[in-house]
């Protein structure tokens, strides 16, 4: 009994350490974002005089609202297009036996492993040839390289898990492939679409390399680039309070999404990685 009590206490201690370790940096960002002026340079666990100055400043003195809209536009368009393309493709890949399917799946998987920098110069050329340089559509286009293979792959694993009988019943009724896809599979794929879409959204929302390279003007930047390039003459003059305020603003929606969809995110991640 004594031993089990001790191990119980140790367990809770361990849990506390894990939570503090994972949450503290975010907590510290919140605390720092509420400090202005020289208050920022005082180490204290709670801000004694919380101030919203930093939050006001990033919207007034920087096009941060514009940056958020840019990110929302890019991530939403990327998710919509890649889900649309991936649903039809995953049905074909997961449900129909045809020659070359294994090779195609292999190709899709390989592309999802591409280092983005490996296509950087070719993509740069493509973006400029299409006249999309410094345009948000350049990001919608280029982000396909990581969202499309991912959504296709994960949805294919979901499609495979669906019972075959449903489709056979529809086939007996003489339904065509498009009907089967839209009327039989799509309703069943709802939860999978939410999970995959959410993960693709997070990936697109967080992307940095392409956004840094293909956009130039302040008003065209997405949130990660805006936060990375917050103006400051030198490393020592970075307006840390504002950087933290901006960081908190873009992270809060993600944290809320994670809290709501925690279970689904985990199942989506494991479908993509473990089941393979």
């Amino acid at each position, binding site marked *: 009994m004594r031993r089990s009590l001790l191990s119980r206490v140790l367990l809770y201690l361990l*849990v506390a350490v894990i*939570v503090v370790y*994972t*949450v503290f*940096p*975010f907590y510290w*960002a919140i605390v720092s974002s509420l400090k202005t002026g020289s208050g920022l*340079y005082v*180490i204290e666990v709670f801000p004694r005089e919380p101030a919203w100055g930093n939050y006001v400043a990033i919207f007034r003195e920087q096009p941060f609202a514009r940056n958020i809209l840019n990110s929302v536009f890019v991530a939403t368009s990327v998710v919509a297009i890649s889900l649309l393309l991936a649903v039809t*493709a995953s*049905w*074909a890949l997961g449900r*129909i036996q*045809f020659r070359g399917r294994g090779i*195609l799946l*292999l190709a899709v998987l*390989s*592309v999802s*492993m591409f*280092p*983005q*920098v*490996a*296509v*950087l*110069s*070719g*993509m*740069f050329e*493509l973006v*400029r040839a299409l006249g999309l340089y410094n345009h948000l559509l350049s990001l919608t286009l280029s982000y396909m*390289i990581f969202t499309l293979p991912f959504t296709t792959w994960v949805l294919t694993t979901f499609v495979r898990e669906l019972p075959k009988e449903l489709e056979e019943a529809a*086939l*007996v009724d*003489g339904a*065509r*492939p*498009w009907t089967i*896809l839209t*009327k039989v599979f799509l309703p069943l794929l709802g939860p999978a679409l939410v999970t995959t879409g959410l993960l693709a959204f997070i990936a697109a929302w*967080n992307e*940095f390399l392409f956004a840094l*390279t293909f956009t130039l003007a302040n008003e065209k930047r997405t949130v*990660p680039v805006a*936060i*990375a390039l917050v103006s400051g003459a030198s490393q020592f003059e970075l307006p840390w309070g504002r*950087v*933290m305020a901006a*960081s908190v603003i873009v992270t809060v929606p993600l*944290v809320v999404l*994670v809290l709501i969809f*925690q279970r689904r*995110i*985990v*199942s989506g*991640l*494991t479908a993509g*990685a*473990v089941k*393979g």
Partner: protein
Amino acid sequence: MAVSGPGIERGPGVPPVPTGATAPVGGEVSRLTRQRRRAAWLFLTPMLVVLALVAAWPLLRTIYFAFTDARLGDAGGWSWVGLQNFRALSGDADWWRAVVNTVVFALVSVTLETVLGVGIALTLDAHIPGRGLLRAAVLIPWAIPTVVSAQMWNWMYNDLYGVVNAMLMGLGLIAAPLAWTADPNLALPAVIAVDVWKTTPFMALLVLAALQLVPGEIYEAARIDGIPATKVFWKVTLPLIRPALLVAIIFRTLDALRIFDLPYVLTGNSRYTASMAVFARQQLVEFQDVGYGSAASTFLFAIIALFTAVYIVAGRVRLSE
């Protein structure tokens, strides 16, 4: 036929086939199977066209550029230089520094993430109240954009006002504040620490998913037989979660090898932390040397391709049913 898809099924009235058989009967491919195969390719085409446009074509162009002296400014004015870029690369100390940085970064961070991830997963697997909330808390670092976590830690690492120095000095572990991101010896460990913080949750959740598939009776039996917990872990748990763990490790290694944003945001183009991706982008965009940068990209691509092949073989990826 209730609905007909746009652009699909416009063939001259194929009558509905009143059978559920999808396999060819007697060696002859049935009309239905042919119809389904045609539909499969129609459904696949849009995805394949987009992938060819944004993946295959840019990749081929990048590899092509690696053998030219193309510059970012001039369109079309490049010439073929053979292996010159690769020869220059092999004698470039900064490039080799980037290779070493990337390999050290990948090895150390993935090792730490695996050990910590398994530890956290084992803890979360225990039956404690509020486990769901706990799992969500652990997911927070994973959901935070890399750029944001880099900036958060950059501020925590600040040499004058950073909380990391304050804590370590408070604990008496260091006598004077350290310049975490500027000191050549500390910069790479500092980058690794942020990556470990950010991606351990991913590892932990993958391991946790595998752990929850281990039947509880096994532990029960081991407990009744009085087998010590550590032995159970090494002899029972670890072998059972090994396939999942292996896949997760390869996944993370691939991710670590192509790392860009973390070192870039934390330390800029500093040669003490620059990864291969940072080096390639610097050559390509900042020095406008498309040929040289593409050569570095191509080299990185080759390494990743090798690892991907290992993953596909080792992970025994399911490509057919």
